[in-house]
C-alpha cells in the first residue's frame, strides 16, 4: 500500500529525514517510535505534503502511484489521513460544515455521490458518540476552545467519518489521561478491518498497549535504525532511547 | 503607594546649565534678507541661497499643523533669532587646541569629551553648538576608509555635487511646515557619506547643544549610504534650563542605496520645562529615510526631553525586499507632551517593517503614538508588524494611540497591536517585599517595559539611555 524508499527531506536548511525506508501492506499497523527530534512528526508532514517540507530525494508510492507528485488534498482524497498532534483552531468554521465538506470531497474522490445533510448528520452524530464528545461539538468552530484531549478525539472522529485507506496518527496519545487514551484507541481499533493500514507515531510505548502494532520501527536521526515486532516497543519501555546514542558512538 | 511613585518621578535635569560664551547672534526676526545674510555668513553657493528662499516662500503659504495631540501657545516666528554662533568660531579653528576651552568644557560637562584620546574608542563625534559645528573628531581615521563625516556647511564647499544631488530628495523643501522652515534657515548639522561597499569603521555621532537664549536650532542632517555600505549613527541633544520656550526644527534625510544599511539612534534630552510646564524646547522634527533594493533603515529613539515633541521618523520602502524598523521609547513627565511615531510606506515587493513603540506617561503629561503603515498597490507580499505599549504612572496623565493603516494590496499583511498597563501596586509590593525601595522598583519596571527598544541601541548608547531614564525618573535611582 505504501512504499517509502530512501526518503530524504528537509525543513528550511535542515535535513530531517535522512534515508528513511518503510513498506506497509494493507491491514498492517506500524508503530514508529523514537526520541524527540528524530523526525517523527516530519514523516507525517512530508507524507501529507505540507508546504515547507521539501523532499530532497527518495520515492514514496501509495497504491502504486507517486504520492510526492500529488497535492495535499489529492493525497487526502486518495485515502491518506493525518491525525495531527496539535490540530489548528479555525474559529468561525463549524465542525459540522467542515466535516461535511470533507466527507463529500472524499466521496467525490472515490466516485461516490455526496451525502445529504440528513445522512451526514446521522453519521456525524454516531461518530461523535463513538469518541464520547458531546453533540454540541459539531456546532462549534473547528477545534475552537477545545481542550487538548477534545482535539485528539475530534481528530479520531474525523478518522472514523473519512474512512481513509492509510491513517497516520501523530502522537495521538500525547497529553491524554488513561480514560481519554482508551477512547482514542477504541476509536482507532474500530477502524481496523484487515484492509485499512495505520502508522502510529508515538514517543511512549503506552499507546501500543491499546493499539497493538504488527511492526515497530525505531526512528533516530532521520532513519529507521531498528525494526521488529511488538516486543521492540517493550524493550524501549524498559531501556529508553539512550542506547541509540551509544550505538551512534560505536 | 502612588505618593511613593510621585516622589520617584521627581525630576532633575542635569544638562540645564548655561555656558558663558560670547556669541554672535542675529537680531530676532525672519525675512528674505535674514536668509540671504545667513547664507552669506556661511559663504554658500548661490544655488543654496536660492533653494533656501524657495523654501521660505513655500513656508509663508503654509499653515502650522494642528492635528497632533499637543497644545502650545502660538509661536511668534519673528521673535526667534535664526543664527547664533560662538564668536571664537568665526575664525574656524583648525584643530582642537584652537577651540575655545569653555566650549570644550561644556561638552565635557555633558559627558562628551572631545579630545580623541579621552573619548570612547570607536565613536566619532560632530559637536554642534547653537548654529555651528564646533569640532568633528576622528576625521582622518574616517577619511582613510573613504567615509566623509563633516559639518554640512563644510560639505557644501567641499562636496557640493553630493549635497546638491541628495539634499531635499527625501524630505522635499515644502514637505511640511517645519521642514519648510528648516529648509529656509538651517544653520548646520552633519553630513555623512559612506562609499560603495564600505562598512563605516566606527560609530558616528552628533551632539547638539542649544545654549543661547531666544534662538532656535535648525540643523539639517544628510546621510548617504552607497550600495552595500553600512553605517551606525547616533545623535544626542541637550539645552539649558530656561523659562522661555525654544524651537528646535530639524530635518534628517537618509538615503540607503541598494543593499545598504543605516542605523540611526537618537537620545533626545532637550530641556523639558519645569513641573508646571514653564519653558522647555519645542521639538518639531522631520526625519525620513529612503530605502532602495534590499536596503535597511533602522530608527531607534529614546525621547525623554522637550516640552512638546512632534516627530515621526519614517521609512519609504521603495526598493524590493527593503526593510524599515522603528524602535521608540518616549517618556513624558510634568506637563510634557509628545506626539511621536513613524510612517512606513511600503512601495516595493516583499518589503518588511517592524514598529515597536513604548510610551511612558507620568505626572500631568500626554504621550501619543501616531503612526502610518501604508501598503501600496505594488507592495506584493509586504509585511508589517506593529506593537504599541503604553505605561501610565498616576491618574493625571494621558496615553494615546493613533495608528493609521492603509492597504491596497491583497497579499500584504499588516498586524497592529496596542495595550496599556500601569505600574501596579502588586508589582511594587512584590519588589518591596524582595527588599527594593519603591524608586528602584519603578525604575526597574520601566526599564523592563523598554527592554525591547534598548537592546536595539548601540552599546555605548544603551548605557546612556538607561542612565537617562534613571535620571528622568530621578530620585528613584540616585
Amino acid at each position, binding site marked *: 500500500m505504501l512504499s517509502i524508499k530512501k526518503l530524504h527531506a528537509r525543513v528550511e536548511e535542515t535535513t530531517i529525514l535522512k534515508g528513511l525506508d518503510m513498506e506497509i501492506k494493507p491491514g498492517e499497523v506500524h508503530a514508529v517510535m523514537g526520541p524527540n527530534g528524530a523526525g517523527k512528526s516530519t514523516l507525517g508532514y512530508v507524507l*501529507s*505534503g*505540507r*508546504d515547507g517540507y521539501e523532499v530532497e530525494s527518495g520515492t514514496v508510492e501509495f497504491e502504486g502511484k507517486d504520492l510526492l507528485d500529488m*497535492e*495535499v*488534498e489529492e*493525497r*487526502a482524497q486518495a485515502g491518506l*489521513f*493525518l491525525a495531527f498532534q496539535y*490540530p*489548528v483552531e*479555525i*474559529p*468561525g*468554521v*463549524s465542525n459540522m*460544515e*467542515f*466535516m461535511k*465538506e*470533507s466527507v463529500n*470531497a*472524499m466521496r467525490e474522490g472515490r466516485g461516490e455521490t455526496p451525502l445529504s445533510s440528513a445522512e451526514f448528520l446521522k453519521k456525524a452524530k454516531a461518530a461523535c458518540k463513538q469518541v464520547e464528545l458531546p453533540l454540541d461539538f459539531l456546532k462549534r*468552530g473547528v477545534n475552537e476552545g477545545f481542550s487538548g484531549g477534545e482535539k485528539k478525539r475530534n481528530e479520531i472522529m474525523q478518522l472514523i467519518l*473519512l474512512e481513509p485507506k492509510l491513517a497516520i496518527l501523530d502522537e495521538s496519545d500525547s497529553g491524554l489521561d488513561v480514560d481519554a487514551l482508551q477512547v482514542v484507541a477504541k476509536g482507532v481499533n474500530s477502524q481496523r478491518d484487515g484492509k485499512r493500514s495505520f502508522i502510529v507515531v508515538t514517543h511512549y510505548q503506552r499507546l501500543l498497549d491499546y493499539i497493538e502494532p504488527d511492526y515497530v520501527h525505531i526512528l533516530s536521526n532521520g532513519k529507521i535504525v531498528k525494526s521488529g515486532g511488538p516486543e521492540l516497543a517493550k524493550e524501549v519501555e524498559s531501556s529508553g532511547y539512550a542506547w541509540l546514542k551509544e550505538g551512534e558512538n560505536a | 503607594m502612588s505618593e511613593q511613585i510621585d516622589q520617584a518621578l521627581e525630576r532633575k535635569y542635569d544638562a540645564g546649565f548655561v555656558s558663558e560664551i560670547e556669541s554672535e547672534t542675529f537680531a530676532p526676526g525672519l525675512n528674505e534678507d535674514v536668509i540671504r545674510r545667513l547664507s552669506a555668513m556661511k559663504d554658500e553657493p548661490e544655488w543654496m541661497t536660492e533653494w533656501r528662499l524657495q523654501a521660505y516662500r513655500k513656508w509663508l503659504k503654509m499653515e502650522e499643523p494642528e492635528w497632533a*495631540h499637543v497644545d502650545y501657545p502660538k509661536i511668534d516666528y519673528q521673535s526667534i533669532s535664526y543664527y547664533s554662533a560662538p564668536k571664537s568660531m568665526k575664525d574656524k579653528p583648525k584643530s582642537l587646541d584652537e577651540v575655545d576651552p569653555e566650549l570644550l568644557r561644556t561638552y565635557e560637562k555633558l559627558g562628551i569629551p572631545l579630545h580623541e584620546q579621552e573619548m570612547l574608542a570607536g565613536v566619532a563625534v560632530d559637536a554642534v553648538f547653537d548654529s555651528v559645528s564646533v569640532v568633528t573628531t576622528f576625521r582622518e581615521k574616517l577619511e582613510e576608509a573613504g567615509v566623509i563625516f563633516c559639518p554640512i556647511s563644510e560639505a557644501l564647499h567641499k562636496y557640493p555635487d553630493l549635497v546638491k544631488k541628495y539634499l531635499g530628495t527625501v524630505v522635499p523643501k515644502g514637505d511640511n511646515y517645519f521642514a519648510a522652515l528648516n529648509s529656509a534657515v538651517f544653520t548646520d548639522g552633519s553630513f555623512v557619506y559612506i562609499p560603495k561597499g564600505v562598512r563605516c569603521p566606527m560609530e558616528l555621532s552628533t551632539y547638539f547643544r542649544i545654549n543661547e537664549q531666544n534662538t532656535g536650532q535648525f540643523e539639517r542632517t544628510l546621510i548617504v549610504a552607497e550600495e552595500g555600505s553600512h553605517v551606525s549613527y547616533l545623535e544626542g541633544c541637550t539645552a539649558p534650563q530656561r523659562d522661555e520656550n525654544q524651537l528646535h526644527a530639524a530635518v534628517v534625510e537618509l538615503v540607503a542605496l541598494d543593499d545598504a544599511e543605516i542605523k540611526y539612534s537618537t537620545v533626545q534630552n532637550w530641556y523639558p520645562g519645569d513641573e508646571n510646564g514653564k519653558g522647555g524646547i519645542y521639538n518639531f522634527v522631520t526625519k525620513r529615510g529612503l530605502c532602495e533594493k534590499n536596503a535597511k533603515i533602522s530608527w531607534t529613539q529614546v525621547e525623554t526631553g522637550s516640552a512638546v515633541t512632534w516627530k515621526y521618523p519614517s521609512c519609504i520602502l521603495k526598493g524590493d525586499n527593503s526593510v524599515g524598523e522603528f524602535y521608540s521609547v518616549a517618556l513624558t513627565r510634568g506637563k510634557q507632551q509628545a506626539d511621536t511615531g513613524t510612517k512606513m510606506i511600503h512601495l516595493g515587493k516583499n518589503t518588511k517593517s517592524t514598529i515597536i513603540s513604548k510610551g511612558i506617561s507620568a505626572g500631568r503629561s500626554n504621550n501619543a503614538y501616531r503612526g502610518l503603515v501604508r*501598503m501600496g498597490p505594488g507592495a506584493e507580499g509586504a509585511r508589517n508588524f506593529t506593537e504599541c505599549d*503604553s505605561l*501610565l*504612572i*498616576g*491618574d493625571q*496623565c*494621558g*496615553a*494615546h*494611540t*493613533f*495608528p*493609521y*493603516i*492603509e*492597504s*491596497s*494590496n*491583497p*497579499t*500584504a*499583511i*499588516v*498586524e*497592529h*497591536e*496596542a*495595550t*496599556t*498597563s*500601569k505600574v501596579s501596586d502588586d508589582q511594587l509590593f512584590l519588589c518591596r517585599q524582595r527588599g527594593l525601595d519603591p524608586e528602584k522598583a519603578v525604575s526597574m519596571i520601566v526599564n523592563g517595559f523598554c527592554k525591547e527598544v534598548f537592546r536595539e541601541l548601540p552599546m555605548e548608547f544603551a548605557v546612556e539611555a538607561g542612565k537617562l531614564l534613571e535620571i528622568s525618573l530621578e530620585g528613584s535611582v540616585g
Partner: protein
Amino acid sequence: MSQWLAHVIDRAANVDDWLSPVRANALAELKQKDWPGRRTEAWRYTSLHKVADLNLATNSQQTAEAPLVDGLNSIDLVFVDGRLTTDIAALNLPAGVSVQSLETKNEAADKLFGKIKPEHHLFGLVNDVLAQQGVVIDIADAAEVDQPIRIVNVATDGIESHHRTLVRLGNNAKAKIIEHGVGNDHSLNTVFAEYDIGDNAKLEHYRLALHEGNAIHVGGSHFRLHNQSRLNSTLVGYGSQLTRLDVDIEHAGEHAFAKFNNIYLLAPNEHFDLHSTIEHAQPNGTTEENARGIIGDKAKAVFNGRIHIHRHAQKTLAELNNRNLLLTRGAQINTKPELEIYADDVQCAHGATVAEIDEEALYYLLTRGIDRQQALIMLNFGFVQELLFQMPNRALADWLHPILKQRFERMMEQR
C-alpha cells in the same frame, strides 16, 4: 460649500413643527459647518463629492414591502422614503411598549431628540433639521419585551429622505430592536437613532445597513448606557455607492457592559465607512468591540474605532479588534483603531490586521481532502461567520447567513 447643503439649509427654514426650537439650534450650528474635505479627519478617506451637488426629490408616494425574515416574528414599523406606512394604532403591542410617531408631540421624544447623538456630525445636524418623520419607542420600567421591534427603512429611486428613531428603555427593562435599511437605487437616506438605556436595562440591537448599488446611506446609532445596563449590538453593512455609519456608545453609568460586533462585506465598487466611538465616562465599564470586513473587487472600506477613557473612568475594560481581508488587487482598506486614555487603572487594548489566510488552517482543510478554492471560501467566510454565530437572535442570523454567503461567493468569483 456644497449646493446640496445650501439647499438643506434653505429647506430647514420651512420646517415648522413641535420640534422647531431644537431644530433652530441645530440649524445655527449647521450654518457654521465647513463642507468636509480630505483634511477633515472624520472624512479623511471618504469623499463627499457624490453628495455635494445632489439634487433629489424630497417627496415620495412610493409604497414598498419590508423584507420578510422567516421566524423573526417582529413588530414591524415600515418607512418608505422616510414616510411611515404602518398604522401604529393597529399594532398589537406587548405590555409596557409605547410606540408613537415623531410627528406628535410627546415627552419621551422631547427628552431624547438630539440629546444622545454627538453634536459634531454634519449629517446628524442635517437629520436634526430635516427629519420630521420617525418613531419614538418607550419601554416602561421593568417591562421585559421578548418580541423584537423592527424599524424598516426603504429608500426608493430618486428620493432624498431623513429618518429619526428615538428609544428609551426604562430601568430594568429589556428589549430587542432591529434597524433594517434597504435600497438599491439612486437615493440619499439619512437614518439616525438615539437610545437611552436605563439602569440595569438590557438592549439587544441590530443594525442592518443592506444598501446596494446607487443608494447613498448616511446614519448613526447612538447609545447612552446607565448603571449596570447591557448592550449587545451587531451591525451588518454593505457599501452601496456610499454608506457612512457612526456608532457612539457612551458609558454614562457605572458597571455597564457593551458588546459591539460588526461585519462588512463589500463589492463591487462599494464604499463603506464605519466610525465607532466608545466613551467611557464612568468607572467600571466594559466594552468588547469586534469588526470584521471582507473587501472584494474595487470596493473600499474605512474603519475608525475610537476608545476614549475619561479621567475618572478607572477599572475600565475595553477591547477593540478589527480584522480585514482584501480579496482583490483593486480593493482597499483604511483602518484606524484609536485609544485615548486618561485613567491609569484600566485595561485597554486594540488590534487591527489586514491579512491573508492562515496558512496552517488552509493546510488542515487540504489534508481533509477539501479542494483549495472551497477551503478558501470556508476560511474567508468563516472569518465573518464567527460573528454571525455570536448574534443572539438565531432567526435573524439564519436569515442573514445564506444572503451573506451568496454575496461572498459572488465576491470570490470576481477575484
